[in-house]
């Protein structure tokens, strides 16, 4: 009986979590439905890109979900979660920000942004190593040779003209 009660309560707990969990929203949905979502709590996921820009006790982190990047305004104590920021040399951490969505934020001069109340890391970022593409190297050697031949040809024709 005891086991049944435990299993039942665990199932109820899980079910209530599933029911109450808000689905994440994409940047396109945020932009397209900005008026309806204005001032509401949303969950948004994306790759941290560019760099963290700290302004006093808060910071801006821009998250790109592959469609657009949205500015997330967050307290500095969330920053400890972030280890990689997306750039040419890195894939940024994939973060999930929950917070209040603003179509035209009063505090930030009308920016479309999210004021985060919670931040979670979904996937770790990583360094990206770019290997040398040998074809490009070969092509540049061949083209250098062609240019050299042209320069020699020009010098010779100039000498011939002088003579």
């Amino acid at each position, binding site marked *: 009986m005891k086991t049944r009660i435990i299993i039942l309560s665990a199932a109820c707990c899980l079910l209530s979590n599933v029911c109450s969990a808000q689905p994440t929203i994409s940047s396109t949905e945020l932009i397209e439905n900005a008026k309806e979502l204005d001032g509401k709590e949303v969950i948004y996921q994306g790759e941290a890109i560019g760099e963290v820009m700290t302004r006093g006790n808060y910071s801006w982190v821009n998250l790109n979900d592959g469609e657009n990047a949205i500015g997330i305004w967050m307290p500095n104590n969330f920053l400890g979660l972030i280890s990689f920021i997306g750039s040419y040399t890195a894939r940024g951490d994939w973060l999930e920000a929950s917070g209040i969505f603003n179509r035209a934020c009063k505090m930030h001069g009308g920016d479309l942004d999210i004021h985060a109340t919670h931040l979670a890391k979904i996937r770790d970022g990583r360094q990206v190593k770019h290997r040398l*593409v040998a074809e490009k190297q070969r092509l540049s050697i061949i083209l250098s040779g062609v240019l050299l031949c042209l320069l020699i*040809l020009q010098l010779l*024709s100039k000498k011939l003209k002088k003579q």
Partner: protein
Amino acid sequence: MVFKPTLDDFKGIGYYLGKIIIGLGLTMLFPIISAVLFKEINPAYDFIVSLLICLILGQLLTIVCSTQKDLSWVQGMVVVALAWLVAAVLGAVPFYLSGHWKSFLDCVFDAMSGLTTTGLTLAQDIDHICRTVNLWRHILPFIGGQGMIVIVLSFLVRGSAGAFRMYVGEARDEKILPNVVETSRFIWLVSIVYLILGTGALTIVGRIDGMSWINAVFHGSCIFMAAFDTAGFTPQSQNILYYHSLSYEVATIVIMVLGAMNFNLHYTLWRQKKKEIVTNIETRTFFISVMLTFFLLAIGLNKLGVYPGALGMFRKGFYLLISGHTTTGYQTIYARQFILEWGALALVALTIAMALGGAVCSTAGGIKSLRVGVIFKALYNDVKRIMLPEASVFIEKYHHIKDVILEDRQVRSAVLISLCYLCLYVIGGIVGMALGYPALSALFESTSAAANVGLSCGVTQAGMPAALKVTYILQMWVGRLEFMSVFALAGFFIASFRGK
């Protein structure tokens, strides 16, 4: 009777085209240096390959078409028109090799957009583009804004009548100094001085806004080049919205306005004649048209309650109006917000501002304030003439660096060019509509392309039809060269087949 061009005509064109291509190639040394500094090995090879292609092509043309003859007016114009097309194709090579564009046409689109200081982009995943390619995206407007021909005149070609003809062909009919080479060098002097000052200012702002030193300097220089040259590129996908910074926006407003000012006016101000800024017809017209269009835009935005408070109106409404009017194209909102939130009145006001543009002999596009000023002055004159007794004679003047008597010839030229621009805006709009876009969006984007602005309401995307991409490429090219060189090229082409 139309004369068929001779072999000598083609040789002259080929020779100077070769010189310009070499000049363009040499500018690729800057991204190569950047690639070495940032240890970006593949981009370094992309630019080495592109540089070599330019040097080989340029060298070939100068050898095959070697000539001592000076350029005629038509040849000068043809060289310029062709040079911009060729530069867009060659400037697109490093983009293509970087793999951040979906097709070579998209690369040419972005290269033309950069060179003509438009700022519309089809680049993919901008947030992961290397610094070297990003630098090239911002150097292109710096080359095109000052003028490719100006570069070549400054460093590669001796001053001659032919040099002046090319200079005029690039839509710069004002000589600041007596010699066209000295004028070109002055344009570069102004640009380099402002580049140093502007980059310094934006670096400080970037640091205050929480950027690292290296990013503050890199973003500062890129943003300066694109703002002063009234292009609209930025190193990040969100454009100026990425910075979320009032101070960055104020700094870019100042730089955009400086870029939209006539280089002749810069020269006059440098000579301590500060009164010129108040008396010049261009600055007056620009000021009035900014005020009028902002008035309309503010009514439109207020009516719909788009932005809360004065700060929101300044950072979104006024910023985007200045960005559009100076033909820069920097955005502090997402492209779709124009259509979804702004409403028709505000969008029309912004479209009018984009269509009017900045000053002649500046880096800005559009109809230009001088032409608008001259047309309105002539209209005012004609009304005045009706009011006065028939026998009365009066001479009307306007002030542009010096007092100039308003003649019918100037009015005719201003009206004709303005009409050509209006036709160009409408043609692009019709193509957009024919391809299924709503009228307002199609006209907005077409005006943005033809006036070399770069603001987008969401039409410009990698997925848009190729026909529209080609239309915008041609609009950017024709709009930047202000028609004459393109007409000369068309005439030359027809004469090659039909001439006797």
